């Protein structure tokens, strides 16, 4: 009887699969991505290497000595660690972080605008107490600008009513407002001493959300040539909630990770974070193979560092607030070994 190995599903639950079954999962995962995105699947040696990672009884997996990468974090810290700055200090001293991120619990540039003075003060304290880079991060979160939370029309309601022109107009209006807020907040935190700014889950609200991010990055880069700017995506496909928006001649709707990276580079970011969402019904192995297939094309076109998103529900990591280390470490190692990227 073939030996079974404990592995995980995308929701974090444990299952026991044979080596043969894990091989099938990896092959199905890469083929699923290849077929959908019209990309080449992972090569046989890559799949064999992934199989060795997953068909292992080890509780933990890690990269080879010498292959370590830089880790960037969004939202560093939890309430149990004390104050926000205490949490960042613990990331530096106790959690071996290469960098960390000060953030507000209402993780939206629109929300932070109203309390930016408080965030600046926290950043001042953070940079006085930490040696590692301290970034500031939030989300573009374009939906906040639609009614009832914001002043623009609600395109999520207008679209089902077939009021396409009104929905597009509302999004275009929201883009202008969001860009102003992101530039305002990012500038304030930069002036307070942030080592860099993070625009997290760019594109979460579709192509308009992504456009707002790119335009904000472009303005910030022009105003602050030395600013570190990280753009982390929300998913492997930019949804066309508007459908006609372009950035420097590139239509944003439908962009996959490599094409997302191209426009992010054009805008002037210094780090790009592709994201591939997890299917919680499939195994971590399936999800990792799929994610790597989708992200691999980034490496051929990247002129800036690529930090694959490998947090909760992305990059193969289970969609669970307390993801098991056996799964997280395998995803971590898989991304580094196969993609040869610059960080996570």
């Amino acid at each position, binding site marked *: 009887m073939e030996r079974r190995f404990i592995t995980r599903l995308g929701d974090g639950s444990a299952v026991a699969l044979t080596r043969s079954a894990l091989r099938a999962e990896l092959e199905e995962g890469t083929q699923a991505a290849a077929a959908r995105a019209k990309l080449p699947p992972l090569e046989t040696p890559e799949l064999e290497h992934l199989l060795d990672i997953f068909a292992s009884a080890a509780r933990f997996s890690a990269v080879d000595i010498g292959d370590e990468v830089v880790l960037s974090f969004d939202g560093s810290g939890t309430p149990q660690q004390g104050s926000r700055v205490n949490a960042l200090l613990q990331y530096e001293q106790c959690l071996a972080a290469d*960098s960390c991120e000060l953030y507000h619990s209402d993780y939206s540039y629109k929300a932070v605008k109203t309390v930016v003075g408080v965030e600046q003060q926290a950043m001042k304290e953070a940079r006085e107490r930490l040696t590692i*880079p301290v970034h500031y991060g939030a989300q573009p979160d374009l939906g906040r600008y639609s009614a009832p939370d914001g002043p623009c029309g609600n395109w999520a309601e207008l679209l089902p009513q077939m009021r396409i022109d009104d929905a597009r107009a509302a999004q275009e209006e929201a883009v202008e407002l969001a860009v102003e807020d992101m530039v305002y907040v990012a500038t304030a935190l930069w002036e307070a001493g942030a080592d*860099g700014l993070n625009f997290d889950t760019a594109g979460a609200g579709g192509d308009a959300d992504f456009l707002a991010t790119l335009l904000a990055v472009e303005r910030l880069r022009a105003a602050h040539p030395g600013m570190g700017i990280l753009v982390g995506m929300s998913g492997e496909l930019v949804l066309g909630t508007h459908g006609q928006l372009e950035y420097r001649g590139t239509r944003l709707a439908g962009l996959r990770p490599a094409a997302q990276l191209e426009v992010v580079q054009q805008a002037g970011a*210094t780090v790009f974070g592709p994201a591939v969402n997890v299917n919680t019904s499939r195994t971590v192995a399936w999800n990792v193979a799929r994610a790597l297939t989708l992200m691999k094309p980034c490496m051929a076109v990247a002129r800036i560092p690529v930090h694959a998103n490998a*947090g909760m529900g992305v990059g193969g990591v289970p969609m669970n607030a307390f993801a098991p280390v056996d799964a997280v470490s395998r995803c*971590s190692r898989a991304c*580094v070994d196969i993609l040869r990227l610059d*960080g996570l």
Partner: protein
Amino acid sequence: MPVAHAVASGMNGLRAAGDLVARLEMARGMKLAEAKVYVAEKLGTGVADLADPLVMHEVRGELRLGRVFEAETTYPHDPSPQEAKRNIAALLDLRINGAGT
């Protein structure tokens, strides 16, 4: 989760040279391999030493770049974070925002 990633694949930040490499990636958009070579040359070490906590702990102490401490290994005369960052900036020829460089 951060601990899992740090142990599985991270350069280990202040325990080694991860923060130094991270600064070059974020500030200059430098790719990992190039950033590692750059940092190693500036530190006078090999690239393989960058993630070695024993080597880097000594190097960081000598160059006053800041390092980790704990209950039984304290460094009361080590530089403050602000001084450490000024030293890092000078070493790496890098402007660090908010550190007076």
